[in-house]
């Protein structure tokens, strides 16, 4: 995407037809100096990104091959010891399963809802457009910790949700939302949907504004219903954005931590805990094991990379 743009933007090229060698040499010097200025301008950011992202990423790879407690770490024998241990770690497997349950249920529901909402809001004749958008986008302003604690309060045993259900006679006794596996996972999924649907809707709205409104009008004149227009005209044009939001949401869900920590505390008995939460526990609580934690973090890294690659592949295929 970026490459294409850069090809279409005209740039002032050094004057190749300049006849005098002396002036050419001077110009070349100037070009070089400007080139150097450019490098100086971008060095702080580039160095920080390399130092704070790529360097620790490679450090983590080395660390994942080491074992030991605290700071006394030695290379493991065999080198892949930590990875071997991961594959027989029942809690780790459970947290992988939990994370993928969140991913598989929440992301599709969220993206479809966000698409529908964005499509509704893109209607030129819609009333109170700003009000709808602000209200639905508002959850994105709250921190993950904050909303987790609000949901925790609302879903407490004697909390608001149970009061409503009891009052409506839908249940006979309060549901122990956060104390049972299925309901605890359900509350986390509900929380994620609440927090991120409006956020993704804004991406689709931005993309919809770039779609030629006349193509929608033309479809309508041709007799296409609103669903047909949505499916055959809008969706294909939104494809790059759908791919992007799918990759972002997948990436975010795999790294879920705040909700697991604050909303359910991973419980009951690890059944709602996410991989990142377990990583934190392994690395920084009780008996910290940095080598094992690093191996776990590399599995997360590989999952993010593989899923992004798969999604890009699927995204390409539909062309």
């Amino acid at each position: 995407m970026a490459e294409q743009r850069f090809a279409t933007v005209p740039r002032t090229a050094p004057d190749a037809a300049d006849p005098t060698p002396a002036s050419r040499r001077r110009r070349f010097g100037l070009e070089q100096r400007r080139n150097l200025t450019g490098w100086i301008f971008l060095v702080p950011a580039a160095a920080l990104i390399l130092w704070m992202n790529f360097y620790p990423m490679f450090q983590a790879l080395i660390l994942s091959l080491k074992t030991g407690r605290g700071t006394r770490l030695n290379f493991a024998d065999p080198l892949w010891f930590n990875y071997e241990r991961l594959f027989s770690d029942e809690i780790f497997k459970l947290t992988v399963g939990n994370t993928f349950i969140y991913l598989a249920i929440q992301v599709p529901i969220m993206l479809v809802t966000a698409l529908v909402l964005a499509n509704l809001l893109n209607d030129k004749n819609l009333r109170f457009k700003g009000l709808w958008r602000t209200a639905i986008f508002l959850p994105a302003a709250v921190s993950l910790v904050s909303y987790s604690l609000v949901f925790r309060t609302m879903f407490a045993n004697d909390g608001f949700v149970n009061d409503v259900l009891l009052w409506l006679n839908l249940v006979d006794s309060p549901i122990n939302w956060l104390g049972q596996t299925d309901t605890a996972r359900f509350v986390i999924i509900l929380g994620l949907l609440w927090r991120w649907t409006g956020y993704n809707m804004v991406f689709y709205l931005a993309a919809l504004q770039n779609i030629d409104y006349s193509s929608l009008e033309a479809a309508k004149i041709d007799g296409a219903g609103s669903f047909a227009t949505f499916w055959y005209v809008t969706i294909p044009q939104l494809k790059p954005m759908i791919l992007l939001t799918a990759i972002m949401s997948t990436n975010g869900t795999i790294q879920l931590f705040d909700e697991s920590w604050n909303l359910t505390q991973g419980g009951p008995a690890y059944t709602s805990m996410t991989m990142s939460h377990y990583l934190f526990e392994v690395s920084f609580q009780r008996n910290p094991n940095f080598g094992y934690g690093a191996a776990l973090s590399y599995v997360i890294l590989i999952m993010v990379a593989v899923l992004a690659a798969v999604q890009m592949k699927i995204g390409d295929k539909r062309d």
Partner: protein
Amino acid sequence: MTKTQARKLPGYIFLSLTALASVFPLYFMVVSATNTSRDVLNSRLLPGTALFENFSKLVAQQDVASAMWYSSLNAVGTTVLALIVCSIAGYGFEVFHSRGKDRLMAFLLLAMMIPFAATMIPLFQMFADFGLVNSSVAVILPAVATPFLVLLFRQSARSFPHEIVEAARLDGLGELSIFFRIFLPTMRSTLAAAAVITFMTAWNNFLWPKVILVNNSYQTMPMLISNLRAGYVTDYGVLMLAVLLASLPTMVLFLVLQRAFAEGITGAIK
């Protein structure tokens, strides 16, 4: 006319329900902050009179002023540094563009795919070696340069007329003054978008501060409210007030600069 209106009714109903569901938990948070714990559990949905009582209980338990200070320091520090470092880099990548720089940019973009989990432990070790555990430097530094912001500024530098740069050079202006005195002032909307998104992310960040701020006396607001729920008996009125205080800065920012925030999250990929 009435027929089209009727056809739109399901849409309006869906929007109303979604909007209601989006706002309700926040309304619940606000009213619960003014109610006693018992009233919160009795699902009282009207403002109460326990606001000051909750507040005095909260400050008796936790040093809210200190957490607010550290949250502000970290978020403002991150935002100011990120704006300077990333805007000048985006400008450098675009205005002084060369093949090598394009390649570097493509490489740096890969950092967007690195999960924080995979860098967290070595980052902790590194800052521990520097003796910077519990310091704001350790909280701020990893968040200053992001490929996303560099990309955002590179994209906006793209629409900046190159002739103006050339004209300023002919007038004898140095490259740095061209950037600060001519380019940056025209980038107000991009700067606002970048500032809002960076501030909100920094203010709301939880995992990294939790890892690197080992001593609770340096805790930020998200850490403070997270620690409030850890007790055996939770006072829900106090908890909701603390959550409200932790959310207020970003919520106000959102309501005032919503457009900038929307541009901030979507800007770099348009």
